[in-house]
């Protein structure tokens, strides 16, 4: 017996990352590329050209069967049985107390076929919960974590680059839609989703095909300025876009309403669902009192706020806590998301500071997101 943690898992593209000289990091039990060169350059490439990501750590779970949609309606807070074939939905899975177990994207691949994509760190929890909650339905839950590699191509040039490698109708593929197709000669589920605030695609494919598709995208994207991108810039991209990250903005300690994401909870769907009672109470609470609100903070100085740092009012009292913070390549200044007392959440609130290792640094309260792409 040993207490040493298990060796991190490696994706199908591991050798490629090493050949590219990536700095690797342990992320949720996976050895993932943190960055290949400058994370700021990678960030800028996604905002202005295109970036290529290996996201194979994400956890895929398939639900199939005549009642797969009803099973998801029961298991999740969203109304997935109403989702059209070929479309995707951002949703959450909660516990009985309404606490968020994970945030998810669910794709409807067929009448009786759904693909649930969970965060790597929560995939086992989600798999176990879905398996249990689907018990009374004509639906089977399958662990497909090893069945898929996930490659994302994100940025304004993404459609042009991917379009040169597929016959799929990308122009007709809406945001949050996905269709089966062929990319570089291999089968892939092509989805117009992402976590960067840019247009882009996510490709679910067999791990054995991952190298081939990565190579093809690298080659096809080179003239447009596509570069490989690591998880470091993925984090700053999503932060600028105001997108929550599980473990930072979301946790089992809060409900979707506390996170300002109550819209994902569909009380009017048929049947009961796990957490309904607690979520109805949370919804009423949110209507009457808003004890804290997720806000954006932009630094006036250059010191970077980090998760867990205290947010202070002008009188020095503690009014909240930073959940994510980073230097923003697009704004050129440090930014953060923070939960603050609702009385201080109004954009432009005077005197708000972040305690950065003992120094009170001035911050401007702004509405989220920090960045919205031009369409």
């Amino acid at each position, binding site marked *: 017996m040993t207490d040493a943690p298990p060796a991190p898992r490696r994706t199908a593209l591991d050798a490629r990352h090493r050949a590219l000289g990536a700095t690797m990091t342990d992320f949720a039990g996976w050895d993932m590329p943190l960055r290949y060169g400058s994370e700021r350059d990678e960030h800028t490439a996604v905002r202005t050209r295109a970036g290529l990501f290996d996201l194979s750590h994400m956890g895929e779970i398939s639900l199939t069967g005549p009642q797969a949609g009803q099973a998801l309606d029961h298991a999740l807070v969203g109304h997935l049985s109403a989702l059209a074939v070929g479309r995707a939905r951002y949703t959450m899975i909660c516990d009985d107390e309404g606490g968020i177990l994970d945030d998810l994207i669910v794709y409807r691949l067929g009448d009786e076929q759904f693909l649930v994509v969970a965060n790597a760190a929560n995939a086992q929890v989600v798999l176990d919960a879905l398996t249990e909650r689907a018990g009374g339905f004509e639906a089977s839950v399958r662990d497909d974590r090893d069945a898929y590699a996930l490659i994302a191509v994100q940025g304004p040039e993404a459609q042009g680059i991917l379009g040169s490698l597929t016959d799929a109708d990308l122009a007709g593929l809406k945001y949050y839609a996905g269709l089966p197709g062929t990319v570089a000669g291999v089968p892939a589920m092509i989805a117009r989703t992402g976590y960067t605030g840019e247009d882009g695609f996510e490709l679910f494919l067999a791990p054995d095909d991952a190298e081939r598709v990565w190579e093809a995208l690298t080659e096809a994207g080179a003239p447009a300025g596509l570069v490989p991108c690591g998880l470091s810039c993925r984090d700053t991209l999503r932060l600028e876009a105001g997108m929550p990250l599980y473990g930072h903005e979301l946790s089992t300690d809060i409900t979707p309403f506390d996170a300002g994401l109550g819209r994902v909870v569909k009380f009017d769907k048929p049947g009961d669902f796990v957490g309904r009672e607690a979520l109805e109470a949370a919804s009423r609470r949110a209507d009457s009192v808003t004890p804290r609100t997720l806000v954006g903070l932009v630094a006036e100085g*250059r*010191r*970077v706020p980090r998760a867990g740092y205290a947010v202070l009012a002008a009188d020095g009292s503690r009014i909240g806590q930073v959940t994510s913070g980073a230097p923003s390549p697009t704004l050129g200044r440090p930014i953060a998301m923070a939960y603050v007392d609702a009385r201080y959440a109004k954009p432009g609130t005077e005197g708000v500071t972040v305690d950065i290792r003992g120094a009170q640094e001035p911050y401007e309260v702004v509405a989220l997101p920090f960045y919205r792409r031009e369409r």
Partner: protein
Amino acid sequence: MSNPQQLRYSKEHEWLSAADEDGVSTIGITEFAANALGDVVYVQLPDVGSTVSAGETCGELESTKSVSDLYAPVSGEVTEINEDVVNDPALVNSAPFEGGWLFKVKVTGEPEDLLSADDYTAFAEN
């Protein structure tokens, strides 16, 4: 990655130039350290005229992912700081041994465990 032979190194990944005729050495962080940090976005350096002590923190370096303490590899009085790197912290990444130097110290004492370039290279690679 090659660490210049004419410099000496600390185990905290700072480099130190040979003292000039006034006994002043230039200090920076190594390319190894800069690569490990990622893009440096903010540097806080000791004040000119202040005294730093070998092995003790005298500033900080912030990158996208983290904040790291800056340690003084020797003891002495700070005679100059690199204003260019304060204004453009990316110099730490692009030229860690040259334009990305951090501060200069009139050395009054140095620890016995400063490393040669070869020894530092072996240390950093393990």
